[in-house]
């Protein structure tokens, strides 16, 4: 008869082995939790990667008749921000409110059949097909500072021509005092428009003299390539002496009007964002300072320049205007 409770000596786990086995399992558990935590972190903070392969712009005038570093302000003599940073750090709420999330959300944005309607107080209003619009004037490379109202800045080599060339083509009437701009409204193609973070479509506006100034650029490219979707494809505005949000993207409508048009951000928070939005280190945003800026790619902050360094070109437009009230 067998003794039921008797376990043979050789089947009893050696205590040393038992503890090492437990240590082994626990090390495994610890490692697994660390990996899981790391994966969650990575999911929430993906590393930006991506390339830009929009078509090269043909016939880009990289060395315009005016000499470099001249009084036009067309080509600022500061190091250009990298293409990677310009195309992966974007404020474009139509796609995402996360600056690093815009590029992935805008991938594949379809601009086929794009049209821009230029209408309102003009002798020859017209709906332009994109090709037609881009043929109005040869694309020039313009190297501008770009200062975001949030306190960071870049230097961007844009491609495009002065907005005035387009406006001249439709022959504005004398009672046209302002120009109103509108972004595409299509929540199917612009997923950010499915939530009402802002009042869609995005609208912007300029005074006529601002719109007609040669620095005001209708941009269709950067770094010699067509604009990637995240930077406002296929056409956008660039107004280098104003905060970045004035540079409306993916434009479908331009209207010449008599009265100051409504603008998205000034409507959203009138005490924080004005119609003018000229870069001004002396007038702080109600919540944060505008005295300095983080230039993307640099380590320390640099002082912000009056009119973003375009005072010489732009200052006279605002002579006599109280810039504190008209921020």
């Amino acid at each position, binding site marked *: 008869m067998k003794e039921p409770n008797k376990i043979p000596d050789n089947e009893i786990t050696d205590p040393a082995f038992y503890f090492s086995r437990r240590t082994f399992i626990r090390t495994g558990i*610890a490692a697994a939790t660390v990996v899981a935590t790391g994966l969650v972190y990575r999911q929430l903070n993906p590393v930006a990667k991506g390339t830009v392969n929009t078509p090269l712009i043909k016939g880009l005038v990289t060395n315009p008749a005016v000499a470099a570093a001249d009084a036009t302000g067309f080509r600022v003599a500061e190091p250009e921000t990298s293409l990677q940073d310009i195309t992966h750090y974007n404020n474009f709420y139509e796609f995402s409110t996360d600056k690093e999330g815009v590029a992935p959300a805008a991938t594949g944005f379809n601009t086929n059949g794009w049209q821009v309607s230029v209408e309102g107080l003009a002798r020859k209003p017209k709906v332009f097909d994109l090709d037609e619009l881009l043929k109005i004037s040869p694309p020039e490379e313009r190297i501008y500072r770009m200062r975001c109202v949030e306190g960071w800045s870049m230097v961007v080599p844009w491609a495009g021509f002065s907005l005035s060339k387009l406006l001249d083509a439709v022959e504005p009437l004398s009672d046209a005092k302002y120009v109103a701009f509108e972004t595409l409204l299509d929540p199917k193609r612009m997923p950010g428009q499915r939530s009402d973070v802002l009042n869609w479509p995005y609208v912007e506006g300029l005074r006529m003299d601002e719109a007609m100034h040669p620095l005001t650029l209708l941009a269709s490219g950067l770094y010699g390539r067509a604009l990637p979707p995240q930077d406002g494809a296929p056409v956008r505005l660039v107004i280098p002496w104003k905060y970045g949000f004035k540079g409306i993207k993916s434009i479908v409508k331009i209207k010449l009007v008599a009265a100051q048009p409504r603008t998205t951000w000034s409507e959203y928070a009138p005490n924080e964002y004005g119609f003018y939005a000229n870069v001004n280190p002396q007038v702080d945003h109600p919540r944060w300072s505008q005295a300095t800026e983080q230039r993307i790619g640099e380590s320390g*902050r640099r002082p912000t320049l009056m009119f973003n360094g375009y005072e010489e070109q732009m200052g006279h437009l605002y002579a006599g205007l109280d810039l504190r009230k008209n921020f």
Partner: protein
Amino acid sequence: MPAMKENDIRFIKLLILVNGLVPLALLVRDQAHNRLGANPQNFLILTTGMMTLVFLVLTMAVTPLRKLTGWNWLIQFRRMLGLYAFFYGCLHFLCFFSLDRGFSVSSTLTEMVKRKYLIVGSIALLVMVPLAITSTNGMIKRLGGKRWRALHRLAYLAAIAGVIHYYMQVKADVRQPLGFAGVLAILLGYRLVVYWRQPKPAKVLAHGRGE
């Protein structure tokens, strides 16, 4: 899981300790490989702030979880979670002081006095200082449980101020700060409900009318 062995508690504490360092380790690693994106300064400030809020919320979640599940051993992990909130809060301030203010004490102070969101954020961090100092067993004994608990209710203030500090800086998309606020409201609301439901013996008896 009614009771836990001392040995298991120690192991779970180790897990929390190690996992709490994972975000910091990845931040350092990404920084070393230049992978923090276009604006690494801003990313470091934002992420350390976010981790502070995450740990504050986790700390606040311990008591409700413990009461709902009856797992009293959960309380043993609260100190470490709270200290992690303080740790990331200090890193958050250091990032702001160094990367945003260039180690300038005067510019840090003028900016902190001028900006409401910085005042609120400073309150959140300063409130955590006495809590961290009195987090040791020795201090709990010295203060006595009742006084210690009263002092540590300041953690609610730290969490609320922290979330407001975040909310105040957002330009338009307030979904994330509101998410934190929502979770915090549930955790603090739970405490209020428990407090109201508690019978208040002395008063009830004194004013109670027998029929």
